[in-house]
């Protein structure tokens, strides 16, 4: 099964690029660039695996092959699929780690500057014993990949005089490409507008949830520590301590899909596939007893048929009808009440930071 097509593409790129496309980097400058990497990676004498694997003898190494380092499935598969680190593959990977090998764990946005990449690769090559032949490049040219053709130069260098666009009043900005809009416009509405093609079952969702979500949200959506509770809480909205979960409070299922896809897992957003999000959403429905069959499959086709129990309980803002606002009365100035007594004191509870008590309140913010 081709689990990581992007890695295959990357490998393909390595095989295809024969010419002197890459810049010869400056290892000295690369040492400075490497500071961005050093939070997670060590290189040189005594380098150890930390958040990321050690980087000695990197050039020529099979991806995902350092003993004792726990790689993502995606990285291991890239290696078994034939990915070997060299100037070309590293350059592509470092430009955009997340898209180059989809699903890998390196939480680094990438080095957008081609010179930076060439420099840091030259720096890393110094720590490869085989006297890794430097990139077969003669000239240092910042090569741009075949990005969307319409994209203008990223930096602020004055652009060549271009035709003034016809749109609008001020004729500023440029037309967005279809791919650009598709890359960012991932929002989903209750009527299903914005849902992508895809599907996933409760059972698939359980596996994903356990792996990607349960650390914070608990195996059954019960929430660990102060992390959000996702399931349960039915019929508690009028209680002294309401439990506002997907099942007890959220009005629309589309919000679950939209939010998980754009922002979850916390700290690794946009790392789930559309199918993954369908599966996790299906599992959350199951945890909330909205569906009860673990073979249930959620898809774009049946999505809008699912209603959440609390949808009807949301109302419009009617604050101005409250008694204290409604008549906008001139307030009392003299002898407004007979007696004034203190009814509650913050000191009694004392949850103020630095009060030395170390007490905690019950309010939660997430």
């Amino acid at each position, binding site marked *: 099964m081709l689990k990581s097509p992007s890695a295959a593409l990357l490998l393909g790129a390595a095989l295809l690029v024969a010419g002197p496309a890459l810049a010869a980097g400056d290892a000295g400058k690369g040492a400075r660039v490497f500071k961005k990497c050093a939070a997670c990676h060590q290189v040189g004498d005594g380098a150890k695996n930390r958040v990321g694997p050690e980087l000695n003898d990197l050039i020529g190494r099979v991806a995902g092959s350092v003993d004792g380092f726990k790689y993502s499935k995606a990285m291991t598969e890239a290696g078994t699929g034939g990915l070997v680190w060299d100037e070309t593959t590293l350059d592509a990977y470092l430009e955009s780690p997340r898209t180059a090998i989809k699903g890998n764990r390196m939480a680094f946005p990438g080095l957008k500057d081609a010179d930076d990449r060439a420099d840091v690769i030259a720096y890393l090559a110094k720590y490869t014993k085989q006297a890794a032949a430097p990139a077969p490049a003669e000239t240092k040219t910042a090569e741009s990949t075949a990005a969307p053709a319409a994209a203008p130069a990223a930096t602020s260098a004055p652009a060549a005089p271009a035709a003034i666009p016809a749109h*609008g009043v001020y004729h500023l*900005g440029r037309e967005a490409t279809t791919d650009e809009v598709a890359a960012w416009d991932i929002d989903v509405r209750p009527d299903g507008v914005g849902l992508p093609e895809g599907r996933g079952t409760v059972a698939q969702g359980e596996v994903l949830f356990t792996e990607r979500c349960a650390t914070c949200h608990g195996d059954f959506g019960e929430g660990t520590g102060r992390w959000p509770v996702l399931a349960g809480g039915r019929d508690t909205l009028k209680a002294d301590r309401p439990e506002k979960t997907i099942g007890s409070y959220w009005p629309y299922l589309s919000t679950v899909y939209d939010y998980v896809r754009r922002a979850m897992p916390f700290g690794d957003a946009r790392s789930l596939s559309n199918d993954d999000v369908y599966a996790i959403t299906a599992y959350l429905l199951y945890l909330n007893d909205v569906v009860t069959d673990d073979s249930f499959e959620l898809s774009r086709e049946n999505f809008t048929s699912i209603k959440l129990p609390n949808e009807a309980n949301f*109302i419009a803002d009617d*604050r101005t009808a409250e008694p204290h606002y409604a008549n*906008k009365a001139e307030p009392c100035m003299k002898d407004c009440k007979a007696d004034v007594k203190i009814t509650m004191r913050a000191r009694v509870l004392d949850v103020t930071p630095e009060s030395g008590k170390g007490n905690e309140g019950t309010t939660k913010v997430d």
Partner: protein
Amino acid sequence: MTEKTDTKDETGPETRVETGGATSRRRFLSGSLAAGGAAMAAGLAAARPAAAEGESVITEVQDWNRYLGDGVVSQPYGVPSRFEANVVRRDVEWLTASRESSVSFTPLHELDGIITPNGLCFERHHGGTAQIEPSQHRLMINGLVDTPLVFTMQDLMRFPRENHVYFLECAANSGMEWRGSQLNGCQYTHGMVHCVVYTGVKLKHLLEEAGIKTNGKWVLAEGADAAAMTRSIPIEKALDDCLVAFKMNGEALRPEQGYPVRLVVPGWEGNMWVKWLRRLEIGDQPWQQREETSKYTDLLANGKARRFTWVMDVKSVITSPSPQAPIRHGRGKAVISGLAWSGNGRIKRVDVSIDGGRNWTTARLDGPSLDKALHRFYLDFDWDGSELLLQSRAIDEAGFVQPTKNELRAARGENSIYHNNGIQTWYVKADGTVENVEVS
């Protein structure tokens, strides 16, 4: 040398710093002892000049008066005096699971006027502070428009600019106090508000550049951060006074305030002021995003929940005296200082009570009175040293009167979390210390 050695927050008499008066008294005493000793050892005493009467900060030449201070550019970007080290944002750790999705509070009790310094503006993130190089930032407009557009920061700077002073208040400000007084300090009870002057361009200009189709009724604003924060905004508001801002108080937005560009939604809850703004989509209905369904909706006692409660209601608080800013000078002339604001416009009047709301005196509004901005009020009074129950009550230009907390609870219950604009009571004790309380 005299120096205020301890400027930490004080909450009790046992930790009170010495006032200038106490210090000088002690110095006078030690001066007397020295004189007594001199009488017994006459020879030595004759060699020393008699101690001058008065405060040594005046009678003795001080180091800063003798030796040169730092030269220019010793701080290329200036910072506050080291004696102000306690004037900082603070957080409440038990409130959140992680600091990346959390909130810090503006130290209102230490500030005056109506403008909040950039470094003290409270923070609220849902996925940490995004660090974005301006040349890598894009703002996209898509959806129901004639031409979907992409702007660079340079493009944005070429639209006509405007400057406006606005308050920004989190809808959850004072949210921890629904069940009663809980946090002892107005930084914590009211510190999710700030007010700065924004420089930016009208959202209207940007949307019209793309051309809004006639069925475009809503705008979805989206951030570029790790939460890709989104909110639906009705088109009327978007075309009215919303700004896309890149400067605050004259300088670039701070990263934690959305550098390089944020949305400004005057008078409406802070959550809508999307930071690191990267996309505006036009649609024909709201998107019902996480921040406008599961959050920022107000649960009532009857189990119903209000949604799209955008406007921030009329509100005020006395910032000093307050629990973190006790009265240190004893009886006599005292200044009550506070802030008032309303999402409905300007503040018309603020009343202050020193007896828990039995009698009220109209306070003096001072400084600029600007639409949807913080207003500063003062009440200058003689403190007789007796206990006080301080309250402030604001009235806005739309005629709305700030309600009591009990009035709010009667209408909404205690589980609303958001939009708690009830009247705050501070209990000033005879020793000048102050506590957060509620009264009958």
